Structure formats: structure tokens, C-alpha cells
């Protein structure tokens, strides 16, 4: 192979590698912003409870590792409600059927039947903008009176967040 072709090939390979790294960093950045936005919304929805100290909300850093993204730092959220603590923890950006998942469970009850998921999914069938949804465990779905048990993914709103927290704290 002539030297020019070899050099072109090497430069192209380097460019692709840098692009992959850049894409990965962008994806992590976008994911971290989505988590921050979720936490900010949770704090807004729970402001009245935080104000009268019924709930005490805090955050701390952890590291997540995903095969395609590598290792990166994110925040977890803790909501103290008297003797009970709710933990909100990012699980990953690369999720089957969603563009990110954050789990919420009561400390000491991390099994699937008591796990609420925040899922980042398209707003609707016609609008691909990702927004946060809440997915309830089977046991909780019945408590949301207006939903048939099989429809466990509901819009993330103040009312649904409060109901999910109520389920976990009971």
C-alpha cells in the first residue's frame, strides 16, 4: 500500500476513535443532565414536605459503570421520612426499551416487587422527545385506581410521585 494511503487510513481510524469518545462523552453528559433535571423536578414536587421538614432530601455521588459508556460519576438522592429512607439511584443510560433508568426503593426493601422505576422514554408515539415516566411494581399498580394493573407506566407528575412514595413508605 502506498504511504499516502496508509497515512490516510491511520488518520481516519484516529478520527473515528475520537468521534466515538466524543459521542460517548456527549451521551454521558446528556444522561447526567437528565438525572439532574429529574432530581430538580422531584425537589419541586416535594417542596412543601421539605419545607416543613416532613421529608429531608440529600444527594451524594457514586460511580456507575456501563459497558458501552465506561465509568462515570452521578448523584444519588436520599429522602428521609422519619425512620424510613427512600433511595433514588441511577441504574444506567443503556436500557432495553428506554433511554435511561433511575430506580427508587425504600432502604432495606430493594427487591423488584418494591422497586419503582423512573424511565426516560419518548413523550408520545409522535413526539420522540424523551421525558421521565414512572413505572410501578405490580403490587403498587392496583393502588392507582384509574389504571388497569397491566398499565404500570404512568407520567411523572406530582400526584404519581406522591402515590409512588406513599406505596414505598407504607
Amino acid at each position, binding site marked *: 500500500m502506498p504511504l499516502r494511503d496508509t497515512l490516510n487510513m491511520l488518520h481516519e481510524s484516529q478520527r473515528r476513535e475520537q468521534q466515538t469518545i466524543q459521542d460517548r462523552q456527549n451521551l454521558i453528559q446528556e444522561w447526567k443532565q437528565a438525572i439532574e433535571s429529574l432530581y430538580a423536578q422531584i425537589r419541586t414536587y416535594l417542596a412543601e414536605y421539605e419545607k416543613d421538614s416532613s421529608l429531608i432530601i440529600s444527594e451524594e455521588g457514586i460511580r456507575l459503570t456501563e459497558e458501552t459508556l465506561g465509568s462515570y460519576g452521578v448523584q444519588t438522592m436520599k429522602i428521609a421520612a422519619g425512620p424510613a429512607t427512600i433511595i433514588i439511584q441511577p441504574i444506567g443510560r443503556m436500557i*432495553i426499551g428506554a433511554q435511561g433508568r433511575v430506580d427508587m426503593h425504600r432502604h432495606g426493601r430493594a427487591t423488584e416487587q418494591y422497586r419503582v422505576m423512573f424511565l426516560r422514554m419518548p413523550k408520545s408515539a409522535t413526539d420522540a422527545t424523551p421525558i421521565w415516566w414512572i413505572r410501578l411494581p405490580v403490587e403498587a399498580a392496583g393502588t392507582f385506581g384509574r389504571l388497569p394493573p397491566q398499565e404500570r407506566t404512568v407520567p411523572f407528575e406530582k400526584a404519581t410521585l406522591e402515590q409512588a412514595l406513599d406505596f414505598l413508605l407504607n
Partner: protein
Amino acid sequence: MPDTQTPVDEAYARYEILSNILERTRQQALANPMHRRNVELGLTKQFRTKNEVEKDIQDAFEDLTNLINHLAIIDMAAAFEGYLRPRLGTAIGEARRLLRENYELEPFLQSREKLVHETDDFQGLARIRELIGGQLSAETSATLSQIREDRNNFAHGTNIRVPPTTTTKRTRETLNSIIEVV
């Protein structure tokens, strides 16, 4: 399939096809665990991470492998019984004929044919083992018992996670060796 195959071989061939399909599907699923197809096939659930999906897939295929191992033994045992049944019928017919021609003693002269079993009396591997046990090696006889127990245990509610006590290959060899004797 060649003519020399026994019905047990045919059952084993069905098992091999199923086993190959399963292995190919397992490899395909694990090569791209996050593909929607794995959710559609029921191998995993929506909203799982790659690690969770891989574990779901491994667990699902472990169960399916156990299932087809159990089913293969049931299929081979049924094929074996089906093969023996007409031969037993012929043997019983022949025994009856000999009885009719040669047995003239009282007090059972009128009911002499009842001294011979019916084909239905040999249903099941246990009765077959009793009948021809004397012609079998101790090892073959023991394996036949295992095959019978595996089949009965599965039919009566064995946990799918518990694999059969015999292998499908050994089941095939054992049942074929009995067919050769009979």
C-alpha cells in the same frame, strides 16, 4: 433419516434438532442482548440493563435446556413403549396359541388362555423391566429404572431447574440396547 433408525433414534433426532435450535437462539440472543427481539421472545423484560438482560437470557436458556432434556427422555421412553407394544402382542398371541395347542390339564382347561397376560398388563417401563429384566445387564436394568423415575418425576411435577438423573445420550443407548435384545 436412514431406515435402520429405531423409534428411539427418531425421538433422539427430534431432541437434537430442538437442542441445536435452542443453542443457535441462545448465541444470537447473547450476541446482541439489548435487541428488542429478546423482549418479544420473552427472554427478558423491558427496561433492564445489559447485565440484567444477560442474566435473564442465561436463566431462560438454562430452564429451556433442562426442559428439552426432560422432554427428550419422555419422548424416547414413549417411542420405546410404542415399539415394544406390537411385539408383546405378537408374543402373547403366540403364547396363547401354544397354550391352546398343548395345554389340556384340568381344572384350568376352560380358562387356560387367562393364564397368559394381556398386552395392556405390560404398559409402562416398570412392567417391561420385570418381564425382560433377566435378559438385561445390571447396568442397563439400573439405567432403565432411572429413565422410568425421570419420566415419572417430571410428569408429576419436578422442578424444571432439576435436570434429569440420566443423560439423553445414555437414555438413547440404553433403550436401543434393550430393543436389540428384544
